């Protein structure tokens, strides 16, 4: 079994994990300082059941001396990384599939279920099969208004929804070295959409710069061994990459935006752990310029965390979005998982910067979800139909 440096639970999977912890005979968690708790999926509580789950978790946090970020900080993955609760070389688990995002800071991080989490909370360790690694080598310079989300949608289309099952995906190459932390998070976040156990970027100067003020630790080298073997290496060049859109109802269906341009959309969501950071919202604002969103579209914008919200606010973008006709909500998962709000009616179409477009993911199973970048989402929200962001 592998020792754990961190364990994250949220309001959906947490209650069950706590119950399993007790059923296993747990009394004290392995290390309260290594447990991260927060609520993000159904906040503020959208039902009495959700409120009851929150109360149950708060009680556990108080009993166990766990720092509970409660409903205050934002989406679990963004907050975990932002607060320095995942760091280079660490092993972190989270009771949520997109935990693989922490690979952006060079951690091995993977999503687990609630019973596994109960075990992790009790023992501070968990059983793993060491994954083989797929090396994704990325070169080239993105065109204007094309970015990391377009890249990961094209990689998902290439590798397939189960092409990396039980494997890790390591993102490497000159494009990755130059990519900011926000972009790396977008890439690693979606490793699970190919079935991967983890996504990872080897820590470099960008990583250590990001860790400053979040975690006290001295930079160290962490690279693949020179003689490391990989399951396979796939090369990608982004220089001629077009904006990508994943069409319903699978994530590995990415096509160039031109293929689906003109498709009517009822709702546009810009946010989530995949694309709700300041950098994402800044791209959306740049595309928007001084124009307005189409009145035929519901535009929902949600910064991924309190910090990201404040950065966006200080830059004047929240005011810009609101004036352009968007609904700006407080940090949370929002419409991404079709639980709390922003659900689709039968026949409706959503364009979303989040990570999943499964049938019924955002409400009715007769609704449709398309996935795209913040730039494509903003351009499409302005026109009321799927639009190439390079053409507005």
């Amino acid at each position, binding site marked *: 079994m592998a020792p754990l440096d961190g364990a994250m639970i949220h309001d959906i999977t947490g209650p069950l994990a706590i119950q399993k912890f007790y059923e296993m005979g747990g009394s004290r968690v392995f290390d309260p300082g290594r447990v991260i708790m927060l609520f993000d999926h159904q906040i503020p509580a959208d039902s009495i059941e959700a409120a009851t789950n929150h109360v149950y978790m708060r009680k556990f946090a108080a009993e166990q001396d766990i720092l509970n970020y409660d409903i205050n900080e934002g989406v679990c993955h963004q907050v975990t990384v932002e607060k320095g609760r995942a760091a280079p070389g660490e092993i972190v688990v989270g009771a949520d599939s997109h935990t693989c995002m922490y690979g952006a800071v060079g951690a091995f991080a993977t999503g687990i279920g609630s019973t596994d989490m109960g*075990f992790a909370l009790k023992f501070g360790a968990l059983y793993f099969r060491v994954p083989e690694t797929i090396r994704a080598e990325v070169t080239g310079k993105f065109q204007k208004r094309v970015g990391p989300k377009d890249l990961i949608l094209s990689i998902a289309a290439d590798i397939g929804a189960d092409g990396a099952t039980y494997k890790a995906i390591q993102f490497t190459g000159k494009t990755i070295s130059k990519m900011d932390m926000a972009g790396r998070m977008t890439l690693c976040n979606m490793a699970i959409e190919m079935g991967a156990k983890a996504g990872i970027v080897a820590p470099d100067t960008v990583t250590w710069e990001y860790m400053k003020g979040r975690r006290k630790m001295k930079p160290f080298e962490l690279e693949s061994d020179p003689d490391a073997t990989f399951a396979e290496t796939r090369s990608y060049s982004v220089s001629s990459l077009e904006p990508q859109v994943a069409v319903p109802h699978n994530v590995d269906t990415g096509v160039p935006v031109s293929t689906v341009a003109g498709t009517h959309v009822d709702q546009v969501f810009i946010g989530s752990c995949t694309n709700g950071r300041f950098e994402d919202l800044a791209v959306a604002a740049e595309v928007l310029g001084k124009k307005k969103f189409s009145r035929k579209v519901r535009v929902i914008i949600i910064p991924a965390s309190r910090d990201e919200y404040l950065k966006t606010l200080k830059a004047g973008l929240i005011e810009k979005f609101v004036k352009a006709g968007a609904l700006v909500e407080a940090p949370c998962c929002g419409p991404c998982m079709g639980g709390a709000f922003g659900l689709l009616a039968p026949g409706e179409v959503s364009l979303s910067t989040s990570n999943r477009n499964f049938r019924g993911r955002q409400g009715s199973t007769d609704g449709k979800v398309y996935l795209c970048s913040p730039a494509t989402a903003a351009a499409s929200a302005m026109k009321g139909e799927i639009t190439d962001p390079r053409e507005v």
Partner: protein
Amino acid sequence: MMAGRKSVPVKSVVVSLRPVTTNMRAWKFGDDIDTDAIIPGRFLTINNPDELAKHAFEGTRDEFAKNVKEGDVVVGGRNFGCGSSREHAPLALMGAGVKVVVARSFARIFFRNSINVGVLPVVCPEADTIADGAKVTLKIREGYLEAGGKKYGIEPVPEFMQGIIDAGGLVEYAKNLKEVPVCTK
């Protein structure tokens, strides 16, 4: 929509992972059946398997929750259980009386979750050809299953996970453990 639902804590559910395995009805599904399809996000405030079962495959195959019987088996294609880590997915199946899921391949988290909670995931490379409604008999020790009168090979589970299966799930496995052997980094 949320009204009238009770949030009931999960009772300790001990399920034998060596269930009665003859003449189970196959509920056939396709490739990439995700956990949102098995149990949609709006029902995740529920933690009780029996309550979750009422919404299993809601919107995807509504007749399932109505007509599924104790001992029935779910059969899928590639990548069964992909997506969210929600353990509510295998719990919903368990609540519906399903103790075995047969698929050509499984998504990683669903595979672990199933074993941990006591639903047996069976990898069957030819699961695609099992017909909906077929009678299925599982011969785990013999390494095959019969469906519609035909024999299908099945793959053994990894050795360590077999230990969890034999214990009756991860809760039972962990109950009497004081500590676990931990490898060094």
